[in-house]
């Protein structure tokens, strides 16, 4: 669905995106995470053909986005919510949405549903956009991206300016879209909002893709952070045996040993509990691994 291969983008001597490869299958929901200036918006603009890669190729739905004709045809299936406020201030929301729907060449089949879900008042749709609050403008921005029920949704910081109720409504709409099979590419620097909706998260830092991981394993189980200490009378042989066993296990990751404390990530709980059943456990904590806990180490923060 989305295929970026070895994409590099330079502005002058400054390399904004470096050798980025990112493949997203149809129906996936992928969060695109990074600090401000990491290259998230640039990547999205490359995807949509607004920027031309210095090197590499960009394909959406098997169409080369550097080929103007192919890019034009594929956009019938795309819904894009940009981060910038490009809504014409003199137009009413209704008029802008009508214009964009006509340019989309697709009927706005979901407009009423999205308007209702986001609790956007009809009178706000009839007012010039320049007189609306930031949050209301963002709702109109979301409606224009969702109203034609696209197969591929590209969202750049979609919750900017939204109140918590509208944010919740947006995630409900995205869940519906996901259930319909829509592919969603969701750029954000608010980690907590990605956890509920995304299958995978890709982390970009200084223009490079530094990590990509699933939020849940193939069985749909969330990863857990495990902290384990055996009793003092457990011999060193028992501890070393356990460490070897954990290192060999496919469901264990990022194993670290500090003194007699074992810290690791577990994809599955059943084999963990089976392993620990016969051991003299003194201390055990198992907690779902938050996205923040996964990402912060990349920034030297724990």
């Amino acid at each position, binding site marked *: 669905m989305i295929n970026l291969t070895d994409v590099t983008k330079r502005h002058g001597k400054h390399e904004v995106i470096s050798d980025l490869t990112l493949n997203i299958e149809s129906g996936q929901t992928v969060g695109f995470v990074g600090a401000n200036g990491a290259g998230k918006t640039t990547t999205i603009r490359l995807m949509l053909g607004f*920027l031309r890669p210095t090197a590499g190729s960009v394909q959406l739905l098997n169409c080369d986005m550097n080929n103007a004709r192919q890019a034009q045809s594929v956009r019938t299936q795309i819904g894009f919510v940009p981060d910038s406020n490009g809504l*014409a201030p003199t137009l009413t929301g209704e008029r802008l949405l009508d214009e964009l729907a006509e340019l989309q060449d697709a009927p706005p089949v979901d407009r009423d549903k999205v308007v209702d879900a986001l609790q956007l008042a009809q009178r706000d749709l009839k007012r010039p956009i320049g007189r609306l609050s930031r949050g209301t403008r963002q709702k109109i921005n979301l409606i224009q991206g969702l109203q034609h029920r696209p197969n591929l949704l590209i969202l750049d910081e979609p919750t900017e300016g939204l109140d918590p109720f509208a944010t919740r409504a947006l995630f409900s709409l995205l869940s519906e879209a996901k259930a319909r099979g829509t592919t969603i590419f969701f750029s954000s620097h608010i980690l907590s909002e990605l956890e509920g909706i995304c299958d995978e998260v890709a982390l970009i830092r200084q223009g490079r893709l530094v990590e990509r991981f699933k939020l849940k394993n193939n069985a749909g189980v969330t990863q857990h952070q495990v902290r384990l200490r055996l009793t003092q009378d457990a011999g060193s042989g028992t501890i070393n045996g356990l460490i070897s066993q954990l290192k060999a296990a496919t469901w264990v990751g990022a194993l670290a040993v500090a003194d007699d404390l074992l810290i690791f990530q577990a994809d599955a709980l059943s084999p963990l509990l089976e392993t620990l059943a016969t051991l003299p456990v003194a201390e055990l904590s198992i907690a779902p691994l938050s996205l923040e806990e996964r990402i912060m180490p990349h920034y030297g923060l724990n």
Partner: protein
Amino acid sequence: MGKIFWFTLQRNWLSLAAFGFGIGFFHWLVVISFPAIGGLNAVQSVVQTFPDGLRTLLRIAPNLQGGFGLVEYLALSWFHPFFLGFGSAFVVQRATNAVAADIETGAIYLTLSRPISRWSLLLGRALELLFSAGLLCLLGWLGQWLGAQLLPEAAAAASLPFTRYALIAFVAWLLLSALGSGALIVSALCSRKASADGIGATWAIGTFLLELVPFVAESPIGWLNPWHHYFPQEIITSGSISLASVGLLIGWVVVGTGVAGFIFARRDLI
């Protein structure tokens, strides 16, 4: 392209109406104020005092007319700084809004995330610019005609050559369109409206000033200058327009729009 043209026109109708009314009102005012400023005698006595430089600036070279009457006076309104200044500002502003302003605000991302090609967007905007410039000139001519109907000397009004004024309005339209197309190139290169406005204004004013420098105006390069082909007094005197001039101005529109499209289709939108 058609949709872009129509939507752009709908968005801009208020400013188009304001400019159109202003240009029409100006031409109407020039006609109806003619008796109030003292009529033909007053105009002739004033024009006779003009030094050669000012005559050149106003393009009322002495060899082009036997005398300077109401007909020539009204033709001068098509070379008045008000008309040329506001007309040029209008097309430069339309051109810079077409691309640079949309990139600056981010509106271009909303449009181009639809199945619209960059060429369609640019041509739709260029078409709106041409249409609007044409409407301004038409309203100017209409204002002039309406003003003439109110002149106390009915005979004078009846003798005014409105077909020739229409030819002037036509060439004025081509001139404004050529200036707008040049500004469209600037717009296609810029990502900030203020920069595009500044460079676009420099293009319009600079080419006008170059036409006043004799050795530039008379050189082959001077012939390429759009202003070189806008000569209301000559049209009034001869009753015809030079096909070469019309061709050059249309050439500017075609080449300017083509170059702008070529640049816009290939540039990064940032």
